């Protein structure tokens, strides 16, 4: 039995060497990244953007929910009131050197203004370059949710127009206006 085991182990080692050797002819698993791009799923949590609604107006109403929910506190913003009484962010700043890309800001946003994209190539040589201001974040399109408009859903579409005293307010089921 002793000698049998020695021979058996010897040949099992030879066999495992052969199996490893045959790997030469198999396909490489490595993706040569900068030349070949990674196929990223559409719901990937990458660089954060601020979107506009279908009318081309900023969606963000500077409610501050994203800044509150952010676990690392990388979002800072301040409210500004427009001429018609609507709220806008005066500045909107995301420090991407702190951001952990958890996606809680996107989930908390009632107006779907803040959204996450598939872009992850955002390395910089200087740390200060990772602080994105509003002009870096704001894009011209509606992002993922094309038709969603917070004020339409909430029935307050016309409150900012002048002479709006005659307009009836729609009664809205608040449970169904979630984005």
């Amino acid at each position: 039995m002793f000698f049998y085991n020695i021979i058996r182990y010897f040949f099992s080692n030879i066999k495992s060497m052969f199996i490893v050797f045959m790997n030469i002819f198999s396909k490489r698993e490595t993706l040569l990244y900068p030349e070949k791009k990674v196929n990223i799923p559409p719901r990937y949590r990458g660089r954060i953007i601020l979107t506009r609604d279908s009318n081309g107006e900023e969606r963000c109403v500077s409610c501050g929910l994203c800044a509150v929910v952010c676990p690392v506190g990388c979002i800072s913003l301040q409210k500004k009131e427009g001429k018609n009484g609507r709220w806008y962010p005066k500045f909107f700043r995301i420090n991407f050197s702190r951001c952990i890309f958890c996606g809680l800001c996107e989930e908390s946003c009632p107006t779907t203004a803040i959204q996450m994209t598939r872009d992850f190539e955002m390395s910089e040589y200087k740390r200060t370059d990772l602080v994105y201001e509003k002009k870096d974040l704001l894009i011209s399109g509606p992002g993922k949710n094309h038709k969603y408009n917070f004020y339409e859903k909430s029935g307050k579409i016309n409150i900012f127009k002048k002479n709006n005293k005659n307009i009836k307010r729609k009664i809205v089921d608040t449970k169904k206006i979630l984005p």
Partner: protein
Amino acid sequence: MIKNIFNEFSFIHVMKPLLFLFSIIFFASSLSFVERRLLALFQNRYGPNRVGWNGCLQILADTIKMFFKEDWIPPFSHKFFFVISPIISFISLLLVVAIIPFSTSFLIINLDIGILFFLMMSSLSVYSILFSGWSSNNKYSLLGAMRAAAQTISYEIFLGLSLMGVVAQAKSFNIIDIINSQKNLWNILPQFFGFIVFFISSLALCHRHPFDQPEAEQELADGYHIEYSGIKFGMFFIGEYISIIAVSSLMSCLFLAGGNNFLGLPKFLCFSLKTLFFIFTFILIRASLPRPRYDKVMYFGWKILLPITLFNLLITAFFILN
């Protein structure tokens, strides 16, 4: 005066060993790149392929990095032994290259005690590990050095004994005589057990996988060269590859008839093909076999390899005397 010197030591006599030396060191250092590429090949990866064409300049980048790192000697170490041990490890098996005939007419010295010289140098290489492990004053490196000393000394016995069959067949310690004695039949067939044991114990001599207990990266964090940095670590690193080259070229001389007739190829090419085959096998073994426990290594050596070598010697003696 100058003329006399040139008469005695002609230019070629001086340049040939130097050329040898530098080509061996260059090949050994580029073997680190070759090994990484080959390991990647065995594991379905690409390995380093960015610097230069397919990564061929990687070795240059590594060398530059190695040279310009801080060469730190720990204040708690024994400085003399700490400095001298990488030099021993680098030199000891580099000297073995001198006795290897790249072809029958192309070697540095034709020693009559060639194999004994190799055995002597391989046992000297234990001291480099012992010194480095002890002088680092670090418990992990000491553990690694202890393991290495026990392993190398015990495997040295089989390293020597397994060659005795070859020596007895050729009736000489001279390597060229041994190569010439294999004109009809390569030694790998009549001395098969000797070959197997020599192969395994030369793996242990080079501290290659699966016999890399002294530098087990997972348990001992690189063992005896844990405190080394910069070019001292580089000397250990390249010394390992030099020992691989020395041992595998010796194997191709002793068991595969070195540069003797093989498919009608030129002698030097034939020799290097055989050597490259052994280097390839060393790397393949590293890629495929797991590392056994330390006591199992000792058990395997004393209870399996030693009887096999003695058995091999007995049979060889029987056939020679018949």
